[in-house]
């Protein structure tokens, strides 16, 4: 079974400052990793994903994340945040194989990190 720990429940930063949102996972199998963003009263939007290949993944809105297998981490970074980045960010993991039954592997989410960007 997989699990995800998001180490910070809240991260306040000033506009134009860099930010790192931390995510650690636990799994006995190879995994896919995802970051989703949720703006107030909305659903989840995919920011970026790691499936295989390069460990540095670039996503939308200037975000990037680095997969570190030895530290079982997938931290999200942005070099300069904007007010509009204020939202909740969720790290998620799924097993990187599909059973013969079809469909997709379920996502296991962390509890989320609320990013607040202040002027």
């Amino acid at each position: 079974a997989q699990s995800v720990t998001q180490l910070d429940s809240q991260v306040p930063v000033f506009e134009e400052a860099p930010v790192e949102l931390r995510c650690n996972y636990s799994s006995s199998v190879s995994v896919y990793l995802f970051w989703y963003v949720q703006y107030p009263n909305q659903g989840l939007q995919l920011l970026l994903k790691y499936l295989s290949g390069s460990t540095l993944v670039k996503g939308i809105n200037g975000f990037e994340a680095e997969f570190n297998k030895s530290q079982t981490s997938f931290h999200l970074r942005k070099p300069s945040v904007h007010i509009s980045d204020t939202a909740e960010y969720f790290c998620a993991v799924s097993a990187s194989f599909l059973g013969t039954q079809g469909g997709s592997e379920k996502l296991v989410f962390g509890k989320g990190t609320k990013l607040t960007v202040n002027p």
Partner: protein
Amino acid sequence: DAGVTQSPTHLIKTRGQQVTLRCSPKSGHDTVSWYQQALGQGPQFIFQYYEEEERQRGNFPDRFSGHQFPNYSSELNVNALLLGDSALYLCASSLYPAGQGAETQYFGPGTRLLVL
């Protein structure tokens, strides 16, 4: 490109009632997953439908049931509602098989259910 749509957006029910939530997957997708997001928590997997069958199920009681139609849309039914069922219910879609996006799920805006 039509994304994932859900209806209704909000719903208020009383304890003991039954509710049906609806989801239309992203155009071209054939797999629908349902998640429950309680206030202040991350989404939790309820179940997944592919080829009109429940393929995976999370740790939710039998009061939670679902259906997938031939056009890939899906319903989530919850019977005998409890106060603790109040949450945002999210639908996600993907495309099987592997290599064609099955590893990535795209979410709808959710249905917010309040049980009084």
